[in-house]
């Protein structure tokens, strides 16, 4: 799909600072990192989760486990899409019972992805708490979901696209705003 970039919302340095700040906020709100597990939502939530966990370890000197959540099987749009999308692996190797799960995604938009992630997470066990960290919140929620930690709030129109590119996946760090093709 050819999209036309109209603006760069975040440069690499801005992303770095935002993620570091989120890590600090997590430590502050949870009074440390005991019992935390940082779970990234596939696809780009995963490297973000890794980065956050890395910062948490730097700040508190304690390693924090991470996990990967693939929400394909929990999507709510099976009735409208036309073919079953490919499923990736979910990897949550630690027991989440009674733990604080930091769910991480790149962009928070309608909220449906997070809804699916919550349903799946709860099928793994009963977490003590779930907190949501996103790099970009672009508004236009269709479900009552709110992020606990936000890298940047970006007001957008429905015809616009917000894309997060990360070094680990795309080869560079940036957040861009673009227009959908007509």
């Amino acid at each position: 799909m050819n999209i036309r970039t109209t603006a760069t919302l975040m440069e690499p340095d801005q992303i770095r600072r935002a993620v570091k700040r989120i890590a600090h906020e997590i430590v502050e709100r949870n009074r440390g990192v005991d019992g935390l597990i940082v779970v990234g939502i596939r696809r780009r939530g995963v490297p973000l989760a890794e980065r956050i966990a890395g910062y948490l370890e730097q700040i508190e000197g304690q390693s924090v486990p991470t996990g990967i959540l693939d929400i394909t099987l929990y999507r709510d749009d099976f009735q409208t899409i036309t073919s079953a999308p490919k499923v990736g692996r979910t990897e949550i190797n630690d027991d989440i019972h009674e733990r604080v799960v930091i769910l991480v995604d790149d962009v928070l938009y309608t909220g449906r992805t997070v809804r699916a992630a919550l349903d799946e997470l709860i099928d793994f066990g009963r977490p003590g708490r779930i907190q949501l960290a996103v790099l970009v919140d672009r508004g236009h929620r269709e479900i009552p979901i709110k992020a606990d930690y936000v890298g940047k709030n970006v007001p957008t129109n429905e015809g616009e696209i917000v894309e997060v590119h990360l070094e680990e996946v795309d080869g560079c760090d940036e957040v861009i705003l673009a227009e959908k093709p007509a």
Partner: protein
Amino acid sequence: MNSLNRKHLLGLEGWNADEINTVLDSAVSFKEVSERSVKKVPALRGKTIVNLFFENSTRTRISFELAEKRLSADTVNFSASTSSVKKGESLRDTVENIEAMKIDMIVIRHSSAGAPFFLSQIVDASVINAGDGQHEHPTQGLLDIFTLREKWGALAGRKVVIVGDVKHSRVARSNIHGLVALDAEVVLCGPPTLMPVGIESLGVKVETNLPRALEGADAVNVLRIQLERQRAGLLPSLDEYARVWGIDNRALQYTSPDCIVMHPGPMNRGVEIAQDVADGDRAVILEQVTNGLAVRMAVLYLIGGAEMARDDETTETSGGQVNARPKTQEAA
């Protein structure tokens, strides 16, 4: 394009490597689901699947039923011990009656080759072949290949030997189609009276001598020998079969050191497979069962998981099926 472009799974004939790998890749994820404490995902919620089993089969039916339930589908079981033709109701009528209750998929096992194909021509639902006569048992083929792939990664160039009653085996036929599509080397071994005419044209070698067949084998898939074959005059005795073609430790000496032993079950211990081989550490028979569940979940998910655009001009033939093309692909 990652997903399958097929409305039915009637057999592995005509499936290419990409399609097979798509199913197996998905099966990896589904295997993980069965390791969770809540072994259920909502992917097929609201879908109705009918298991139409005209042949007795406990294990395959249970495997499909569990797969369906773990995908949150509603399942209905219809077991008939003989073809409904004999009871007076034709297969067409039986199925049309069931379909009138608005179902999404039919999983059918039937003693007549071509019965799933026949169904696919008369129903709107997706049809999954759980074994039709001596024709194909595609989910068994897929799970066998999945088991091999788990061991080796790629199958290209690996030597797989299928031993036993190939003539009457739908498992063998499905395995052959899939393995050849993935560039494995396939050798068939068994008594000549149980080897079907013309099978070499499927891209396999035939060898009657077991040690020669097993030389350097990376995997042996052992087929069940049924008592009826002896009664039908195709074999002198099960004892002789066991001595000449039975897979025991002596036979396994000829294979490669990491060779694995598979069996579709149920086993006749002491006939086609020796007791100690069945329980030995080369045998992956129980893994096959676990994999069977994951593979069936993958198949049901990929074929039934979304509304396929129903194209009135689709044509189905038994080899190389062409199916409804989805009208649009969702953006990934």
